[in-house]
C-alpha cells in the first residue's frame, strides 16, 4: 500500500518535471503529440539538421525554424472529444 503510494508520488514528480513521460493510462493522442513536439524541438535544436531540412525545402533556415515552431501547436490535430 505504502509502496504503491510512493510509486504514485514519484511518478507525479517525474511528470511534473518531464512533460513527455507517460504512464499506463497515456492515450495515443498524448503520446503522439509528445513525439511530434520532441521531434520538432530536436530538429530545431540541431542546427546542421535544420540546415539540411531548409536546403531540402528550399527556404531560409529561419523560415523553417518558425514553421517548425508553429507546428508545435496541436501537432497531431484536435484533441479527441472526451468520452462519457
Amino acid at each position: 500500500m505504502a509502496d504503491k503510494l510512493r510509486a504514485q508520488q514519484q511518478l507525479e514528480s517525474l511528470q511534473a518535471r518531464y512533460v513527455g513521460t507517460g504512464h499506463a493510462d497515456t492515450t495515443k493522442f498524448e503520446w503522439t503529440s509528445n513525439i511530434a513536439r520532441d521531434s520538432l524541438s530536436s530538429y530545431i535544436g540541431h542546427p546542421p539538421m535544420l540546415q539540411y531540412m531548409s536546403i531540402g525545402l528550399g527556404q531560409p533556415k529561419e523560415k523553417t525554424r518558425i514553421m517548425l515552431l508553429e507546428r508545435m501547436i496541436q501537432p497531431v490535430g484536435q484533441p479527441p472529444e472526451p468520452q462519457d
Partner: protein
Amino acid sequence: MSGSTRRSGKSKTFDPANQRTNTSTKASLNEAFDKQLYDGNGVEKYVGYNTSIAANDEDLDNVGEINGRRLVPQYTASTSQLNEFAHGDTEEADILMSREEQAQIASRETDYQKRRFDRKLSPPRADPFAQNGEDEGWSYRDIMKERELEREEARVRKAIEEKEAKGGNQVLDHVPTLKDGIDGVDGVVTADGSKTPPMEQKRKRKRRWDSNSEEPADTKPEPEQKKSRSRWEGDEDVPQVEEAPVEKTPVEESPAEVSGPVRSRWDTATAPPAGAAPTPASGLQTPRPSVPMPFAFGTDISSRNAPLSDEQLDSILPSDGYKILEPPPGYEPVRKAVGVPALPVGYNGYMVPEADANSSLLGKQLPTEIPGVGDLQFFKAEDMKYFGKLVDGADENDMTVEELKERKIMRLLLKVKNGTPPMRKTALRQLTDNARQFGPAALFNQILPLLMERTLEDQERHLLVKVIDRVLYKLDDLVRPYVHKILVVIEPLLIDQDYYARVEGREIISNLSKAAGLAHMISTMRPDLDHQDEYVRNTTARAFAVVASALGVPALLPFLVAVCRSKKSWHARHTGVKIVQQIPILMGCAVLPHLKGLVEAIGGNLNDEQPKVRMVTALALAALAEAASPYGIESFDPILNPLWTGARRQRGKSLASFLKAIGYIIPLMDEEYSNYFTSQIMEIVIREFQSPDEEMKKVVLKVVSQCSITAGVTPVYLRDNVLPEFFKHFWVRRMALDKRNYRQVVDTTVDLAQKAGVAEIVGRIVNNMKDESEAYRKMTVETVDRIISTLGAHDVDERLEVQLVDGVLVAFQDQSIEDPIILDGFATVVNALGERAKPYLPQIVKIILHRLNNKSASVRQQAADLISRVTFAMSKCDEDVQLVHLAQALYEYLGEEYPEVLGSILGALRAIVTVVGLHAMQPPIKDILPRLTPILRNRHEKVQENTIDLVGRIADRGADYVNPREWMRICFELLDMLKAHKKGIRRAANNTFGYIAKAIGPQDVLATLLGNLRVQERQSRVCTAVAIGIVAETCAPFTVLPALMNEYRVPELNVQNGVLKALSFMFEYIGEMSKDYVYAVLPLLEDALMDRDQVHRQTAASAVKHLALGVVGLDCEDAMIHLLNLIFPNIFETSPHVIDRVIEAVDGIRNAVGTPMVMNYIWAGLFHPARKVRHPYWRVYNDAYVQNADSIIPAYPSFEDKVCQRHELDIFI
C-alpha cells in the same frame, strides 16, 4: 602567580607520586586498618561519634552569624547563578519527578508558557464570506465588545486595587463576606459534587459584569472583594516586567514573566455568556452551561484551601463524646479567602463534568480495550474525560445521526492518539477523507479540547496537530468560524522550547491562513492585538508574523502600518511592532524586498511615548538589519537619525536595545559612514562596558565585535580607544565562570584580533594562561587557539613566543580535568610556531613522556593525542630523533589496557610512522607489526580504526619489511573486521586486503576470502565480495577470475551469490578493463540470469549493469544484446530491490548498445491491452526518455495516421 612559584610548580609536574608503579609502600585503607586506627574492638565502631548531620542546611548557615550578620565577609554566587540550571534552556531533569510527568509537555514549560491554560476556546466566529454565515457565531463587533469589556474589567480591578491601597475600603468592611454570592442570591446550593465550581463561577460572573458593564468605571466594588489585594493584582502590572530586550527565542523572554502573579479564578471566569464551545463530552448536558473549564484540571488549588465541610468532619472525628459548639456571637471567619467563595459543601476537588456520577470515579479500572476501537497502546485516566462515552455501553441503534457521527470521530481520534502506528495511519486517513462529511464543528469541538489537556504528551500533541493539519487541507474555507479556536491551541506551539513544535505550529498557522484568507485572519486576530494579557499579545504577534510569511508581506503591510500607528492603545502599537520584529526572524533575507515598507511602518515608533514600544521598535530594527545584512542600508536611512539621538537619551534596558539596533545597522554601511558612526557610538558602548546588567553586557560585546569587523574601523582606533577598556572590564576571572559570558567574550576577542592583530591581543592575555583559575586559563587558551589558528603566529615576536609556549605548557600541565580545548590550544600553538618551536621541543617531549606514564588514563590518553597532533611540527624542526624516541616509548605502552588510551597510542604511532617513514622507524616495522596482530582482535571501535589504519599504511608502503606468513595471519584477523559496525573500519579493512594481496600475491589471500563466502552473516559476505573485487583490481582480474568462476560451481546459494556480487564489484572497479573478460563471464551470467532464485537474478543484473557501463563503445554490442534478451523478461518483477536492479541493468545496456536498439524492445508493450504489462514498459520508457530523450527521436515508430507522420524526416538531398 609569580615566576618563581611557577618554577617550583613545574617540578611538581614531574612528581613521581603521580606515576604508575606497582611497588606501593602505603597501607591500604580497609576496614581492618580503620579498626586499628580508631581502636574499635568490633563492638560499634561509631560509638561516641555524632551519627547524624543536620538534614537542612540551616544549621550550618547560621554558624558565625550574630544578629543575622556575618562576622566574616562571604562571597557567594548570586541567586541567578545558583538557579541557572533550574529553569529554561539549561534546566536539568528533576530525578524526583515521575516518568509520566516528565513526558508531559506541561511539566517542562515555564510559568509563562503555562499561561496558555488561562486562555479559553472562544465561540465560533461568523464567516461573513459564506452564505448566511453572518448569523452563525460571533461577529467581529461582538468580539471587539468582549475585549473592550475585558479591558474595562482589568481597569476597574486596578482602580479598586489603588483604592484599597489608599485604605479606602473601611465602608466595605461591614458587609459580611459569606452572605454574598451563592447563599445570598440563590439560597443554598446542593452540594452533590456533580457540578464543577467553574459553572457556578460563570453564572456569578455573568450576573456581575453583564448587568453592570454600563455603569461608570468607578462603580462601588463588590463586597466580597475586600481584603483581596493579592488576588486582584492584575495584568496591568504585568506589562511593566514583560519584554526582555532580546526576543529571538521565546525562552529568553519568559523568565521576565515568571514574576507575574498566578491568576486567580476570577481572571479566567470571564467566559462569554452564550455560545461557548461545548466540552467534549457534552452530549448529556445542555450546551449552554457546559462552558469549558475556565481553569484546567489541576490548576485549581482552592479545594485544598477550602474549609472542611461538616460531612468531612463527621467522617474524621468520632461521633460520640464530642459536641459541636456554636460559634460565639459576633464571630466572623478571618481566614475566609475571598477568591474562593462559592465552594459547595462536600466539594472534593475536580470532578468529571458528567451527569452520571459513577463514571466520574477515576479510581475505577481503566479499560484497555474500547468497543469498536480495539487494543490501544495505552489509556490514561484523563482520556476518560474525553472518550468516556465510548464505554458507556449505549445502544447505537437508537441514536441520531449526529450522535453516531460524534462517536465515530471520537473513536478515530482515540485511535490516532493512543493507537498503534498502523491503527493511527488508517484512522488518520479516514479522518482526512471524511473531513467534509463530518464538518468542522464536529471535528474541532473534539480535537481542540484534547489539545488543551494539561497532561498532554509530546507524541499525542504531535499526532493531534497532524490531524488538524490534514483536516485543514480538506475543509478549506469551511474552517473559518474555527480559526480563532485553532489559533488559541496552536499559538502556544510557537513559543515552545522544542524546535520541531515551533515548526509544526508555523506550518499549521500558515496553512490556516491560506485556507481562511487574509481578510478573515485579520478580522479574527485583530481583537487580540490589544488584548489585556501580554501572553496573548505576544503569541498573536508571532502568529501574525507567520501569516505574513504565508500570504506575503505586501498584503499585510497596510494593516501593519495602521496597527503600528494606532492612537487608541499602546498595546496595539507594541504588538504591531512586535509582528514586524518577528517577520525577519521567521523569513531571514527574504524580507529584503519589503524592507523599506517594514522600516517605514515602525520608524515612527522610535519616538513613542511608551518606553516599551520604543524598546521593541529598536529590537525590531535590529532583527530587520540582521536579516538584511549586508544589504539594505538605504531602507534604514530615515531611522538613522532618531536612532542615534535616541541612543543618547536612553538609559538601562532601552539603551541596550537601541545599541543592539545600531550594532546591527553599522555593518550594512559603507566605509566612511561606518567609521563615523562607530566613533560616535563607541563612547556610549565603552561607557556601558562597566554595566553590571547581563543583557547590556551581551549587547555591548555584540556591538563591539560587529563594529570591529567593519571596514571603516582602523586597528589604531581599536588599539587606542577600545582595547584598554575592553580588557579591563571583560578579561576578568568572573567572566570565565558563566557559560554565556565566556562564549561571548571569546567570540568578541577573536573578532577584535582580526582587526587589531595577533600580537596585540595575544600579548594582552598571554599571562592569563598561568592564572590560578582553571576556567580562566581555559578561556584564554581557547581564545589564543582560535586567534592563532585563523591568523597564524607570524607577528608573534620572540618574547611573546616564550610567554606563549610557557603559558600553554603551564595550562597543559595544570589541568585538573583533561580538556580537549587545552589540547587543541597546545597543538595549534606548536604547529603555528613551526620551526620556531625547536628550542621548546625537548621540554615538550620530556613532559609528554612523563605524562605517558601517568596513573590516570585520561592523562595518558591526552599525552598520546598530543603526540599525534605535533608530529608534523616536530619533523619540520628536524627532531626525528625525538620522534623515534617517542615511538619507542609508545611501543612500550602497546600493552595498555584502556581501549580509549590504546587507540590514542596507536594513532600517535601512526602519526610518527607517517612523518618519519617506515625505513627509519625505530623499533623496526618487523617488530611493530607482530605486536599489532593480537590488537586487531580488540573489539573497541577506536582501537580497531587506529590499528587498521596503521596496518594498512604498513601494508601499502612497506609490505616487504614483514614476512608473508605474518601477513597471512593478519589476513585472517582482518576477516573479523569486516563485521565492524563502522563503515570506515570495513573500508579500511577491504583496502588492506588489496595491499596485502599485492605484497604477497593474490592466491593465498583469495583462498582465504573465498572460504569466507560460506559464512552465515550477510554483512561479512558482502564485505568479502568487496574485498575480492579489490584484490582483482589490484592484482589484475585474470589472476582472480578463474578461481572465482570455479567457485561458482559450488552448489550453494550463498557462495554463488557471493561470486556474482564479487563479479559485480570487480566490474565496477576495473571499468574499461572488463572488455577482455566479457566473453569469459558470459556463460556464467547467462546461467545466473536464468536461475529460479530472485536474488540470484538481482545480483547478476547488477553485475550486468557494471559490465555494460564498463564496455560502452568497446565493441561488445553482441554480448550486451544477448544479455538484454536475458534481462528483459525480468522487468515484470515486483519486488522493489529486484526491479530496481533490473531497470538499472537495462539502463546500462542502453548506454552500451544505443537507445534505438533498446527502444525496439519497448514499443511492443507501451499500449498492451493489459495494464500489468503496460505499467513496467512505461517505466522503462520513462527512464529512457529522461536519460536519452534526444536519441529516441530517430527511433520513434512511424504511424499510419497522416497527421502523426514526421514528413521532415523524409527530406532527402
